């Protein structure tokens, strides 16, 4: 056998685990979800033919007259509109800070900024229940010291969503590290040239740093957007299955989880899952389209 074919064969062998995983745990399940979305299958019965009916587009028609779905979309969009900018700005500022040559103990700072990211969400939720407690929580105690009366974060429907945003922004470690990797990849001679031309720190940041790391910023924003749309575990833990207080934490995926695993309505839940899938795919495609125009690529492929 020629060497090239032999190498290709080896390559295929190495890729096999992913082929199997992709087919068994991703591709076939998605196709099955599409099939299930045309049925009225309920998880209370065993999955065999005869235990469910084909209902055509009924589940999709139901999407348009589901009041909780509209509420859930509102909650999710509101959360996302706060989470995406926060999830870009906070890790970027942290990355710039720990990348600064003026920071003493930068390594310790990196480690400590990353620390909350490894805290399991159940533990984070309990910690934030305490910190955001209206009377004894440290946030409201600090606000009180400044003469501000803090809100009842977790029991006030106007604030519960934002409280979850705070919880989400606590885990910015991954974003910070990826952006830090980008910052360290910017060639220093560009900064030196700009300094000689008289550019100040802010100008260098806006005219050099941001464009140079724009692909990573786009990657972060895209992932942040997609993750925000799927956010719900902390909401389930804090607000329970009903999205308390008053449905203010009824996220899209909480609605999905209820339909599928509380009400066992797998047919309708499949339609909900596919709607989310389509939304995510469209948004990803849009982000890529925008990225192609705006992002700077070293080497100038764009």
């Amino acid at each position, binding site marked *: 056998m020629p060497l090239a074919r032999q190498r290709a064969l080896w390559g295929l062998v190495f890729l096999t685990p992913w082929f199997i995983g992709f087919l068994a745990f991703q591709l076939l399940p998605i196709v099955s979800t599409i099939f299930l979305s045309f049925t009225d299958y309920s998880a209370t019965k065993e999955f065999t033919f005869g235990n469910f009916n084909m209902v055509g587009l009924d589940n999709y028609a139901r999407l348009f007259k589901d009041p909780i779905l509209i509420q859930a979309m509102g909650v999710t969009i509101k959360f996302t509109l706060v989470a995406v900018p926060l999830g870009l700005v906070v890790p970027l500022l942290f990355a710039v800070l720990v990348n600064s040559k003026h920071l003493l103990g930068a390594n310790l700072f990196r480690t400590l*900024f990353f620390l909350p990211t490894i805290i399991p969400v159940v533990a984070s939720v309990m910690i934030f*229940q305490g910190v955001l407690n209206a009377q004894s929580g440290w946030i409201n105690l600090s606000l009180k010291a400044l003469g501000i009366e803090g809100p009842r974060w977790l029991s006030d429907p106007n604030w519960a969503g934002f409280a979850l945003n705070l919880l989400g922004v606590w885990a910015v470690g991954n974003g910070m590290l990826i952006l830090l990797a980008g910052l360290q990849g910017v060639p220093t001679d560009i900064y030196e040239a700009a300094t000689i031309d008289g550019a100040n720190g802010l100008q260098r940041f806006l005219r050099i740093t941001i464009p140079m790391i724009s692909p990573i910023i786009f990657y972060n924003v895209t992932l942040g957007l997609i993750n925000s749309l799927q956010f719900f575990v902390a909401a389930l833990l804090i607000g329970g299955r009903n999205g308390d207080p008053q449905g203010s934490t009824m996220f899209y995926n909480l609605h999905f989880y209820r339909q599928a695993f509380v009400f066992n309505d797998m047919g309708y839940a499949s339609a909900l899952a596919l709607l989310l899938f389509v939304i995510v795919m469209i948004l990803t495609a849009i982000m890529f389209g925008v990225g192609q125009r705006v992002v700077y690529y070293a080497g100038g492929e764009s």
Partner: protein
Amino acid sequence: MATISQAQPIASVEAASRRSARLRRASSTTLVTLLGLAVMLIFLLPIGYMITTAFKDDTQLSAQNAPLYPAKIATYAYQGKDLPLYNMPTSAGTVQWALVHPYREDSDFIDPAHPEKGIFNWKGRWRVLDPVYQIQPTFDNFTNAAQNGAWEQIDFPLLFRNTLLIAIISTIGTLISCILVAYGFARFRVPGKNILFIILISTIVLPPQATIIPLYILFTKLGWTGSWLPLLVPAFFANAYDVFLLRQYFMGIPKELDEAAMLDGANPLQTLIRVIIPQAVPAITAVTLFHFFFTWNDYFAPLVYLVGHENLFPISVGIAKFVGSFSQFPGRAMATAVMTVLLPALLFFFAQRQFMQGIVLTGVDK
């Protein structure tokens, strides 16, 4: 003479400008570091809350004017009794008196500085007085001592063992499969490789909800629900995120090293084990930790697949019931949080240098 007297001022100007540059650098270092410390203080406030509360008595949390650190009311032993001490404002400044008999509008006190004077009566409400606090962490929230201590309510050793086993097995599966797949993508000319790689990357954005219902049905059919298999088996078939990270790192390893091994007669698998893996320790550490933390953290999959099987629960699902009773027993909840965080935090601190290197050097494909 003349040349020296001319050179002198130039040298001192240079020295002065060097000194001012050093001064400027020192002042920006101070400024940036102080700013960093301030941001860090706010950012890690919740961790401070967690640790202090875990060692506090629940009564301290509801007490007015109690200190933020774990403390108990100081006592004074008098006639075989431990009497609580209170700060008493007097004309001679604040003194500490021990409360012997509390009444409504007046109370009996004793002055520890002058016990020979005996018990005396004080007109005033003792409830408005501030107790004397002394630092004293309690371990009751961790142990059985408190009526609602964490150990009493959950079988923490079992939860811990379950979580550790799930995390270790699934991390091993992820490492084996992702290293193989990443090596395949990094080093071999497979037909259609670019398209395959794009498909792999696009699965990063695939919402798990789009697949979980059929998987749940499948795993139920196989009799796997109510066991760890749905959590463990998929880990052995690679995931896009970790493959991507490893592949980026592998691509940065010089190909000459592979070729040298090949010339020595090593086959591709031997090359992977002898050349690539030893070169990629930082990236492998990063993936190990990422996946370990992910599994330690995971709540949704065990919730769905292990429902009703409490003896198989990992920590995340096992302690979730404390979320609901937080307002009653905050100390217990925080003690549990501390126990949950401890192992990942220790791992992270020990491996952080390799971990940071693995991520920061790998970077993201531009």
